[in-house]
């Protein structure tokens, strides 16, 4: 929902002119979608305001021009036409995207019946059955053109499937529900209980003594990483994304995530279009581990004032942790 501040953000005049240019180009390709310039401008104004308000940093005219030129303008025109209930736009949408929707639903759903239900629901939702102030609210009106319409449809299908499961199992939370979905199921982590072995008393005392230092040092080390490095580690470890799947996420040469990782790399300047290979992701992971290790050791030595022999004990504890996951048993999920 737009805040008052968002609604009041002024759109520069140059943007208005560029929107007109973009609109005219789109209408040449699809003259029968019944979308007016004002209609199109309204949609883009909302998107521009969201863009401007996504950061406190002042936005330059060049940034706004780039932003508008990256909009999937034809997809947006189609979506607005469909939101307005234009017959021609709906026909185009149905011709071009129905098979994609059906295939996507079949891929995600556990059964054909579920897949059919999802496609049915998505179509009805796209058309819109809710009426607010006498006007039908179409799901299409939430599409901004920032990504492709197919990417957006994938997300709509996914959410629709989650809703379908929730309706069937109301008592189950969204998080739990996501674990029950078809291929690419979420990797719910169930921490293994430490093996029921008899641990010598002195060993127990050692563990109890150094465990807090190990836990707080790894927490600190992770927290000092930059956000994109944290996300990389979370995708790899907590979400179990494979290297090639992470590479896919940053395949787009213009991806800011890719830019942040490659900022200090000369290779990017030489060839910014280079494909990101799994080996590149591996290198980024290695760099992140190295940073975590440095901070982890610095914390043990500095913050916890441990001597080298104690640091060595902590590293031994880590081996134990890897073997039986005992250190974090009391750690609360965030």
């Amino acid at each position: 929902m737009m805040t008052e501040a968002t609604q009041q953000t002024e759109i520069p005049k140059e943007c208005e002119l560029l929107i007109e240019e973009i609109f005219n180009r789109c209408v040449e390709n699809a003259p029968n979608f019944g979308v007016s310039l004002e209609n199109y401008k309204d949609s883009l104004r909302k998107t521009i305001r969201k863009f401007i308000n996504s950061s406190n940093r002042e936005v330059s005219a060049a940034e706004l021009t780039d932003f508008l030129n990256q909009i999937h303008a034809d997809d947006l025109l189609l979506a607005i036409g469909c939101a307005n209930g234009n017959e021609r736009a709906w026909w185009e949408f149905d011709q071009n995207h129905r098979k994609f929707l059906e295939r996507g639903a079949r891929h995600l759903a556990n059964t054909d019946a579920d897949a059919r239900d999802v496609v049915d629901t998505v179509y009805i939702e796209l058309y819109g059955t809710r009426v607010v102030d006498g006007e039908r609210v179409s799901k299409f009106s939430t599409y901004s053109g920032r990504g492709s319409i197919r990417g957006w449809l994938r997300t709509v299908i996914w959410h629709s499937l989650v809703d379908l499961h929730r309706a069937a199992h109301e008592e189950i939370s969204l998080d739990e529900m996501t674990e029950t979905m078809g291929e690419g199921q979420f990797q719910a982590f169930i921490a293994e209980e430490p093996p029921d072995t008899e641990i010598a008393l002195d060993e127990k005392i050692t563990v109890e003594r150094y465990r807090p230092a190990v836990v707080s040092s790894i927490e600190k080390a992770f927290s000092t990483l930059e956000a994109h490095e944290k996300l990389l580690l979370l995708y790899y470890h907590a979400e179990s994304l494979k290297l090639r799947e992470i590479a896919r996420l940053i395949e787009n040469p213009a991806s800011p995530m890719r830019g942040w990782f490659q900022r200090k790399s000369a290779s990017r300047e030489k060839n910014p279009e280079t494909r990101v290979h799994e080996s590149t992701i591996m290198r980024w992971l290695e760099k992140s581990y190295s940073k975590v290790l440095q901070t982890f050791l610095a914390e043990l030595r500095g913050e916890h004032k441990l001597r080298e022999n104690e640091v060595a004990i902590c590293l031994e504890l880590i081996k134990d942790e890897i073997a039986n996951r005992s250190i974090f048993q009391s750690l609360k999920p965030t």
Partner: protein
Amino acid sequence: MENTLKLNSEELQIQGLLDSYLKRRTAGGSSTAAGSHLDEDTLSAFVEGSLSERETLPVVNHLVDCSFCRHVTTELIRFDLAFADVPVEIAETEKQPAKISEILSGFVARLFGGNESAVFAHQEQEKPEDAEAEKTEDQPEPKE
């Protein structure tokens, strides 16, 4: 976790520790970060790498803290990759575009037990001149 990384023994230990820490940090956790979840438009644009740096930073910060949205992006990445090499399919072209009600009728029948008026009852009333135009021009003009 793929064990193909070139790590020294200490880095391997820290990798294992991080693995346990991040899994435990996420396990069974409430998915709610501060504020609401990301909308579908933002999620899909992020997965496609279409967002600018200005827009991506708050999204990445949110994904670090919100396991639910992160799960969604994870699934969308897998979903996207699963179709990466599949050619784009387009339905067989019909000579005359169908009306919305025709496109939706099958869906409506299944969802509402055949009563499509439940969906179309609220449609705006046709203006008299529109109704007149409908008589002579039953279908929209094909795309040029």
